[in-house]
């Protein structure tokens, strides 16, 4: 059994190594700098108090993200800034088999035309802030999944552990979340005139 001082030293090292990730995830959840700071500090306090529940030190990241996510749900979600979120009928929760079809048929025809053969310059034409604004408008379940996997680099198993859902749910949320993100970015590109004339013509034809 390691000494308490050894555990404290190890815990401090882990927090210091993950401080940017914890803040980044908290910021995307609360959409507010002050609340994100409070959420991280509360989560670190809670994590230290619960250090005995960490069975495998290799699973520190999913463990502390789970604590942070639970703290957000219990104490911060109600007052979180809520911009207009991308509408999505969460009640339609299809089985794995018709997952993709159900997501796609909800998208506009013009988007599907573009999506069938997207222009490669499209992504480069977007500002980082365009991409993050679109992510912040994703419904929470999809937003946190995209953030944990695509920004923080968690595996599907780790994200499932952090969010207390199955890996299959993570996979489904990733498919849906990224499709919603793609649609939002396409709408933004249309509004900002970023699509090339050729693609606009093809979409209208």
């Amino acid at each position, binding site marked *: 059994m390691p000494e308490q001082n050894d555990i*404290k030293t190890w*815990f*401090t090292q882990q*927090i*210091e190594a993950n*401080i*940017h990730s914890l*803040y*980044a995830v908290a*910021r*995307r959840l609360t959409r507010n*700098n002050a609340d*994100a*700071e409070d959420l*991280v*500090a509360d989560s*670190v*306090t809670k994590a*230290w108090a619960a250090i005995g529940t960490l069975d495998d030190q290799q699973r520190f990241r999913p463990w502390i993200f789970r604590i942070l996510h639970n703290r957000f749900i219990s104490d911060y979600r109600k007052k979180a800034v809520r911009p207009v979120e991308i509408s999505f009928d969460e009640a339609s929760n299809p089985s794995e088999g018709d*997952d*993709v*079809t159900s997501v*796609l*048929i909800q998208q506009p025809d013009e988007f*599907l*035309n573009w*999506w*069938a*053969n*997207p222009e*490669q310059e*499209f*992504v*480069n034409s*977007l500002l*980082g*802030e365009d*991409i*993050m604004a679109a*992510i912040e408008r994703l419904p929470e379940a999809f937003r946190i999944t*995209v*953030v944990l*996997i*695509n*920004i923080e*680099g968690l*595996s*599907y198993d780790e994200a499932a552990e952090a969010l207390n859902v199955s890996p299959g749910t993570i*996979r489904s949320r*990733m*498919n849906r979340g*990224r499709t919603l*993100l*793609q649609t939002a*970015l396409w709408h933004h590109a249309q509004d900002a005139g970023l699509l090339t004339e050729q693609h606009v013509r093809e979409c209208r034809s």
Partner: protein
Amino acid sequence: MSNDADKPDIADSDCLEAFDHLYAYLNGELNDQHKLAKIEHHLAHCRSCFSRAQMERELNQRIKQSGKAETPASLQHRLRKLLDDI
């Protein structure tokens, strides 16, 4: 969708299956060797899905680059004090 001159047909089962596994594939989470071989074969033969996969790869990179939030100094000081006190 296999013929990129066509209008999109989301009923194209090969393309739908590829899309269903695309994010798992790009995120290194597609461990089923049969599905892995199937999507790689499809991407090698379907220009439409290949284009989408390329776009999603680039978007993955941009999301990763853009998503890092700079931790405020105030939080760093707060955590240092918190860790000193525990």
